């Protein structure tokens, strides 16, 4: 993707997909001649055009991003927190830096930075492996030049490969940034586990590794859950940033579909409806947040049940 041209990555990605074929079978038979329609039937035809179907499936893109990013970020976070606790110097240092990057700097800057940096990093690595006898510098003025077979994806790759690569890059970026958040939460949770537990484990003759896996990790989740559920809410609210990473997500389609359409280019001309499309997105996010709140609330009350914490105590008192 990072070719020689210093073009804006959004434009480069966005422009590639203009050729999608939208001539698919009509959902309603009366939609063949939109000009004769009015009122509800016009709206039902308008909302089932091929482009609208692409809009609806982009909600799937958002859900897919959440489904992939959440576990990967959890893994990154766990690794980061474990590294920050390590007694080995460079590991400890790396973990702490990883956690510290979320402090002080706007997250959006990280999103914009990582998506280019990762792309160039991958191409640079492939370049080093595949073209070892290349003698020109990679950075030539404002260009980033690698040999042809090191390009990612290859110049002649199919459309969907470009699309998938862009999406995976976005997922990785999300996972790195949210992994740092999760590492912060889990590092706190690991420190919240009572120290006596770890001392007891050491007294029983467990090695540090055994103490970590058998004593610390099983107990930390209760402490980590409030922070992690907060993080899930934050992750939901960060999904529109996919748009900035050049993926065709709901924001892209809302802008695309809502803009003024004249009768020359479409069967369904209308004015500037972007406000209504973004209102729909707002409602979608509010609904999703509410649903998550309810589900996480139930999960929390189930996990605190019978625990020797303030929450568990409150539950016991309420029942009595």
């Amino acid at each position: 993707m990072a070719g020689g041209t210093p073009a804006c990555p959004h434009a480069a990605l966005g422009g590639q997909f203009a050729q999608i074929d939208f001539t698919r079978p009509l959902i309603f038979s009366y939609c063949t001649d939109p000009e004769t329609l009015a009122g509800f039937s016009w709206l039902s035809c308008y909302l089932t055009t091929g482009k609208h179907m692409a809009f609806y499936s982009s909600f799937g893109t958002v859900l897919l991003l959440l489904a992939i990013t959440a576990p990967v970020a959890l893994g990154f976070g766990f690794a980061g927190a474990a590294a920050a606790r390590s007694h080995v110097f460079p590991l400890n240092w790396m973990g702490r830096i990883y956690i510290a990057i979320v402090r002080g700097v706007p997250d959006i800057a990280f999103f914009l930075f990582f998506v280019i940096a990762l792309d160039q990093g991958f191409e640079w690595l492939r370049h080093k492996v595949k073209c070892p006898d290349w003698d020109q510098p990679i950075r030539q003025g404002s260009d980033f030049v690698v040999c042809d077979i090191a390009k990612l994806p290859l110049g002649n790759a199919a459309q969907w490969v470009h699309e998938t690569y862009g999406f995976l890059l976005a997922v990785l970026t999300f996972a790195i940034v949210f992994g740092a958040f999760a590492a912060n939460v889990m590092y706190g949770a690991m420190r919240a586990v009572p120290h006596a537990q770890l001392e007891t484990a050491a007294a029983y003759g467990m090695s540090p590794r055994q103490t970590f896996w058998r004593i610390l990790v099983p107990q930390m989740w209760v402490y980590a859950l409030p922070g992690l559920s907060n993080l899930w809410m934050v992750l939901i609210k960060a999904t529109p940033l996919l748009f900035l990473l050049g993926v065709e997500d709901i924001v892209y389609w809302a802008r695309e579909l809502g803009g003024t359409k004249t009768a020359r280019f479409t069967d369904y001309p209308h004015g500037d409806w972007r406000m209504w499309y973004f209102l729909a997105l707002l409602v979608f996010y509010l609904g999703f947040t509410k649903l998550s709140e309810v589900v996480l609330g139930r999960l929390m009350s189930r996990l605190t049940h019978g625990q020797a914490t303030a929450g568990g105590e409150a539950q016991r008192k309420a029942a009595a």
Partner: protein
Amino acid sequence: MSCWDTIADYALRSVGVGERLLPRSDFTICQQVVLIGSGMIWNVYFGVLALVSGFFLATALAMGKFSASPLLRKPAEWFIFLFRGSPLFIQFFFAYFLFLSLKQVAPVFTPFTSAWLGALVVLFLNTAAYSAEIFYGALLSVPKGETEAADAYGLSGWSRFRRVIWPTMLRLAWPAYTNEAIFLFHATTLVYLSGFPAFQQRGDALYYASYFADKTFNPFVPYPILAGYFILLTLVLIAVFGLINRRLNRHLPVARRARMRIRPNLIR
């Protein structure tokens, strides 16, 4: 061209003073530092004004949510849920297109379609909602003894709020509110990436940083510069809020004072 010339040309570029054209080739470090720093003017502008104005609405909203009457409580709860439950990015887009539509109806709304006012309104409402939730949490933990003491002294209504409840609420909320302030400043970077256009390429720090990253295809220079500016801004904020925190806690013995802790966990 020396670095002093660059400063003269671009230090106030983001507010429209100085050289009109942005650099197009042969980018120097100096140009990047100066232009991104110039963009910080907008980040500070949005952050400070939204924070100061949002503070008052947040206090009102927190009192509303704390109130026993559902007529006051429900609207406050809904307002807070609306702005905390949806992404700021979508709020910016929606507000921009809303103002565009309103402009067709009434020309009064013309200034709202430009970032300096429209985005400020969104940030003001957004930070009010987040701060209101913090203040509400603090109101809940105002010690019962203090309100009882106020009653015993014959204070009621406004004077009880102004002299007893409000100072304690602020004192309890301050560490979390500092956090909110920091993330509000970070959120100002979203303004020019959402709907609001950067008139004559007058944008904020991230606008110029991404301009350089796009032109040079090298993210490793502009983004660290941006990060440096924001770390500086964060340190200044922590210092200022720390001073206020000291003043709010000045009547307490040192050991009981709330410590400032920065806990970063917010993207809006």
